């Protein structure tokens, strides 16, 4: 394991030795750069969606009609809500309020769990009706995009779980501590939300019109 504390001065790897404010800026910029690659990662799938849809509109119309707008809509609201509580958690961390930070993180985690439950019900129904990733192009795109998004939700949950445990110990709110972790976790979670903001109308609403 690379030991950051032994890294020579003046290199990228010793940012833990930097003054907390500068380290905080480093962490955040690092996450923004990572999120940029995430956008491009999903961008390929969005490109595939558009090309396939305009190439085989009838396949997408048929497939999209099978999706339940209610599940998709509820999941959108759930994810927006958890993004909201995450923003409030970051706000609490900035104000060094330990208890609100903890509970807003728990609420965010709860939102993620609810999202997973609804997604599970939805996928189970699809699979039971014989709609699998290989059924047609629409379901290929549907399972790839929502599946990749789901993996991001799971990674985000791991991240938030870690934040909850550490917030409980006062790691982000103690005197002289840095809340960079909460901020960075929040950035990641908001990206997961943003991706769903685009996926919801494209998959659930727009196939049926063509």
């Amino acid at each position, binding site marked *: 394991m690379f030991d950051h504390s032994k890294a020579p001065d003046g290199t990228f790897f010793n940012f833990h030795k930097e003054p907390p404010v500068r380290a905080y*800026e480093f962490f955040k910029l690092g996450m923004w750069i990572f999120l*940029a690659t995430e956008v491009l990662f999903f961008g390929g799938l969005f490109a595939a969606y558009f090309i396939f849809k305009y190439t085989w509109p009838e396949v997408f119309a048929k497939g999209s009609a099978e999706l339940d707008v209610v599940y998709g809509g509820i999941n959108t609201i759930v994810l*927006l809500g958890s993004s909201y509580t995450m923003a409030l958690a970051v706000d609490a961390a900035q104000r060094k309020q330990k208890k609100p930070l903890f509970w807003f993180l728990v609420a965010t985690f709860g939102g993620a769990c609810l999202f997973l439950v609804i997604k599970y019900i939805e996928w189970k129904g699809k699979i039971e009706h014989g709609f699998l990733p290989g059924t047609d192009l629409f379901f290929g795109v549907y399972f790839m995009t929502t599946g990749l998004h789901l993996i991001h939700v799971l990674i985000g949950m791991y991240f938030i779980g870690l934040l909850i445990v550490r917030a409980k110990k006062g790691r982000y709110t103690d005197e002289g501590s840095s809340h960079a972790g909460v901020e960075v976790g929040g950035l990641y979670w908001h990206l997961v939300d943003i991706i769903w903001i685009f996926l*919801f*109308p494209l998959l659930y*609403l727009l196939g049926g019109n063509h």
Partner: protein
Amino acid sequence: MAHHDHHEEGHMGHIQSKKVYHGVILALVVLTAVTVAAAQLDLGALGNDLLAVAIATVKASLVITFFMHGKYEDKVTWAFIWYPIILLATLLAALFIDYGNRDWDLFKYRAASVTEQHHGDGHGTTPGQVEPTAQGTETHGEEADHGAPAHKGDGAHGEEAGQGDETKQDDGQPADGDDHGQNDGGHE
């Protein structure tokens, strides 16, 4: 509203009023409802798509600006916000221009080519020959489609037309292709 410089010593991030978060989540929920309503309108396939993407972009901007505190970020961070957006827009625009301007329907082309029976060359009849990739067939197909009547004796186009025909003969018309192969295949 005047804002402090967030680089100020000892300050991590900018604390904004909680009302901002309440307002943003309200706007996001309302815009979700608007998206659902807007999808019921009939603006044509492209119109509906553009409207939905536009609303989603507004929502994403709200999240980036207020939830992710993009409002208080410096130029470097904004460079990394814009660069994937610009790259993605370029990718989508290029793909739309490309696919929007060609007769890309591979299956339609294949079906038509079998019935129309274009001329081919000797190579096409060799069994087990590696098929051109879908991309290749597509491109050659287009040329063959548009230029088909002019192909006889057209040396410049002969080779490309011939390549396209290999696939067609695999589809089940080897005998006919053989007859014309010597003359039109472009192998002088």
